[in-house]
């Protein structure tokens, strides 16, 4: 979709993208889009069009024209090389074993001291 051009439809109604939040701890999730003449009407219709059964804590409507996004050609650049273990927990799998080693060393020393006294 061309985000730069005014996306007009149906008597110049605009396309609004609808986002919703399931609960206070949840993030907003994109639902779908609808046609509306303005943001108030878009918001007034949003829940019934996309959330007739799900519970809903909050809703946003955003005019599609106001969304700036990557072009199809740019999207593949989002891919990353899988070499970033240093910033993920899986890069630190050795820690537990090392802590255990220190605890065991300590406990062994304690035992020795007890039996020695």
């Amino acid at each position: 979709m061309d985000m730069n051009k005014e996306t007009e439809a149906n008597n110049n109604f605009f396309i609004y993208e609808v986002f919703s939040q399931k609960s206070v701890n949840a993030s907003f999730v994109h639902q779908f889009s609808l046609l509306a003449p303005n943001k108030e009407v878009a918001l007034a219709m949003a829940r019934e069009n996309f959330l007739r059964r799900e519970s809903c804590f909050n809703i946003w409507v955003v005019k599609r024209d106001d969304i700036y996004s990557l072009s199809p050609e740019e999207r593949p650049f989002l891919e990353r090389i899988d070499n970033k273990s240093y910033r993920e927990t899986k890069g630190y799998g050795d820690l537990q074993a090392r802590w255990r080693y220190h605890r065991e060393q300590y406990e062994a020393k304690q035992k020795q001291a007890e039996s020695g006294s």
Partner: protein
Amino acid sequence: MQTQLERSNLTENEKMEAFLARIDRGEKIEADDWMPDDYRNQLIKLISMHGISEIMGALPEKEWVPKAPTLRRKLAIMAKVQDEMGHGQLLLRVAEDLLAPLGKTREDLMQDLFAKRLKFHNVFHMEAPTWADAGVIGWLVDGAAIITQSMSLDTSYAPYARALHRICAEEKFHAQHGESIVLELAEGTEEQRKMLQEAITRWWPSLLMFFGPPENGTITSNQSTNMRYKIRTQTNEELRQAFLKKYLPRIFHLGFTVPDDTIYFDEAKDQWVYQQPDWEAFKEIVKGNGPRSAHRLNLRETSYTETKWVRDAIMAYGRHVG
């Protein structure tokens, strides 16, 4: 951007090759991706017809909304028809985004519908004279729709797939809604059973027609385009057989019949052998010459035309506040 320039320097042939390679890899196409014209046109045809069928499909059942026989049924059928309108909304949005580069909007789709250029499913041109018809629509027409829609869940066009996922989740409720009405009638009085049998008999040819004419070994260019682009993956006859396998036994289990004396299941071929409906009549029906076509088109056109002032008004308000 450098890369964008490089890409746009690709020849049409190269773009086409890259596109087909994406389809073959099972990738999904988005609305703003490059796509060949026949892919776009095929999608527009399929999805706008699907969408407008949902909108027109609300009308035969709508006849029974105020009349539904209990408070619970009144609420359930209202919710169901509302969902159909909602499905129409989703699908029309997908079609509108495909039409946007051609400078067309929902308004054009509506005008195409009124001029009979945009067709809708044969079943929604038919009469629904009793409450049992509402049940049969919910049970068997929605059952047929679930089979075609589920088949398209894996479509190569991502926005259509996303709409279908939402739709199929709700169709499960619709089928249960229909089954519930039908079972109540089937387990009910003589009169209720008679009403249901008549509705099944009345809807039988339309249900067979729902999936379109059989291929008989020859596949139309539309179908082969659809299959090449992975828009859909099964033939009309495969879908119809899936429907018959699922629903015919259930009709028989309830002690009802279909108006086909010679119908039988061919074990060797693993398919139902049935009498063909009148395919010439089918062509006339989808052209807009079915028993209720004019009435329903009139209902939609009148309401749409007479409420133009409303759309104009809220649009005018929109100009002040944005």
